[in-house]
């Protein structure tokens, strides 16, 4: 039944007009259908986020303690002539794994309203990154991917946060990172410092960040505090209060 036909029905001067009782019944039926359609329409799902979102791992000298678990012998090209860069910088990185374009599905002839698929963490993260203009992470070459540090950090999968909070977290990480200076010796694996900051509603860092887990290197810990304080004010948080920030050289 088209909308145009419904309009005709309700037009008392139109051709083929209906009685008041019929019009009322039709109106009731139309409202029932509308309510039914609205009740079937999916509501916005909260985005499922893991407890932490990581920023891309940059090129750094691979640390022996954290290198690939298997030996990665790099062959010395003896016989064949090789290109001669003046100085090689290590390690090389692979192209972004997230840059792969997705195949676009063919448009169907009949538009059908479908329940949107549940947004995965990666998709949500990619969407948020796109929104705040942050580049997608670059994934290191397989032979140079460092082991995840065994930090003993608590893991709490299944914590749901709103897209608003997720977006704020990404903006905040980007902001702190822009103020984080990391000399070579602070890029070693295993250096993980965890701090708690008290944030005002406007993003100001109240007092000095509290070190709740030391990296074991007091200079690294101080550098993390320095980066947070230099970043104040942070982007205004959705809610004032205490937040945990972890500094680590690797994902």
């Amino acid at each position, binding site marked *: 039944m088209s909308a145009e036909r419904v309009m005709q029905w309700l037009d008392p001067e139109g051709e083929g007009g209906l009685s008041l009782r019929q019009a009322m019944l039709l109106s009731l039926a139309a409202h029932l259908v509308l309510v039914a359609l609205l009740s079937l329409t999916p509501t916005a799902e909260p985005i499922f986020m893991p407890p932490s979102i990581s920023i891309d791992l940059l090129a750094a000298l691979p640390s022996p303690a954290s290198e690939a678990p298997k030996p990665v012998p790099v062959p010395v090209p003896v016989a064949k002539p090789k290109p*001669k860069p003046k100085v090689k910088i290590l390690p090389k990185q692979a192209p972004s794994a997230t840059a792969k374009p997705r195949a676009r599905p063919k448009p169907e002839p009949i538009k059908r309203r479908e329940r949107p698929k549940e947004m995965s963490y990666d998709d949500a993260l990619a969407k948020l990154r796109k929104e705040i203009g942050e580049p997608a992470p670059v994934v290191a070459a397989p032979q140079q991917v460092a082991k995840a540090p065994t930090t003993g950090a608590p893991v709490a999968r299944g*914590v749901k946060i709103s897209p608003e909070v997720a977006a704020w977290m990404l903006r905040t990480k980007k902001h702190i990172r822009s103020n984080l200076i990391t000399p070579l010796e602070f890029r070693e694996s295993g250096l993980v410092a965890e701090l708690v900051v008290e944030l005002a509603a406007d993003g100001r860092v109240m007092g000095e960040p509290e070190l709740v887990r030391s990296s074991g290197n007091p200079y690294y810990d101080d550098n993390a505090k320095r980066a947070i304080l230099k970043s104040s004010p942070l982007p205004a948080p959705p809610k004032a209060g205490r937040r945990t920030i972890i500094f680590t050289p690797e994902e």
Partner: protein
Amino acid sequence: MPSHRSWAGSDSRCIGRAGLVLAAALGLLCAGSPRAEAQDPAIVVTPGDERAFHAAVQLFKDEAAPASAERAGELRRLIGEGMEYSGVLLPLADDAFLGEMQTQALSGRRRYDCADWAQGGADALVEGIIRRKRQQLSVEYQVWDTARCRRIAEGTIEQPDSEMVRLGRLVADAVVKGFTGTAGVSGTEIAFISDRSGEREVWVMDADGGRQRAATRGDSIKSFPDWTPDGGAILYTSHQRKKQPALFLTSRGDYRPGPILTRILDDRPKYRGVFDPTGENLALVTSLNGAAEIFRVDRRGRELRRLTRSGAIDISPSWSPDGTQIVFISDRSGAPQLYIMNDEGGELRRLSFNGSYNTAPAWSPDGKWIVYETRVGGQFDIWLIDPSGEVNVPLVSHRRSDESPAWSPDSRKIAFSSTRRGKADIYVVDVNGENLRRLTERQGVNLQPSWGPFAR
């Protein structure tokens, strides 16, 4: 116990605020760490591109007699150069100064203008006063972290007027230590072999290539310089005509210069000696039955112990920083390769399996890497391998040879010799392959750098 109360409070707060659905996950969070808000995931921050802090170096207040209009400015310039050499700190440009350009007085326990300095982009503020004590220049300095508004380094350094460069470098290295815990190396020295004066002699220069001067003079050919760990002397091999190669010390302090280990193996050539990290023992390369072997001996010539017994050529020893292991070169497999043994000659293992000719290994002072040269085609490149042998990567590559790598004491830089501009010169490069710079300027052949210890 306060800590117990704190944990209990944290738990109850978490559970009280959490819904039933999330209770289990939040419980994990609260049990593992006193996090701020259990339901708030942590923000994880990884390193960005920035590797250097900016330091505002003031003109130090000059109270030394006789008065000098240039002294404070000269010292400020030298401190800035020293920081730049380290690569960890860069001097803040004058037009970015939002505070006093000159030190009026050293700050007490508190500064009130940290925010101004931070606003101008200064991560650090360096202030100081120049005085004269005992006929020397005495510089008292303080380093402030502007973000935290804390004093992170302070001290007094005394040097003769003639050592103004060294004075500036030592202050710069102390500022670096305040930020990273490891001092800078702008005040260190590099020994090397040069024939610019005729024979090959031992020469010494500042780490940036300045003040190049001869440390030996004679009619013999010298090779393989090696610093004592305290920087008081340099060990080297002297090759005199019609004589066996022998080991000598050249000293500028507490060591007696001249030949050493004369009472042992006196009928055999001593090709090379390398001090262990304590300076009490040496790894000694000599010849037995036509093959080079490695011995260990204390510096007075006692407790001689043979470490290698392969019958092949075993040379180029380098100690691990804890002195318990030695990496060396052996051709026992048919080609020169890297091997590691303990300081008794046991627990032998082959380290390198790539390349047909690997030599000149040097163990980094932080123990994480061994740098060595490997033949690629007709020339040598410099590679890094970790002591487990799992990671083996190129560091410096050129169509001409790069040879004889040596570590800076902070493990951030590597000196080496290269023929990339014709005759061999000494170069320095950061351990990540960046900041290549040449230290010697084609004055003769310059070889075999050996980096001295931290300046004192």
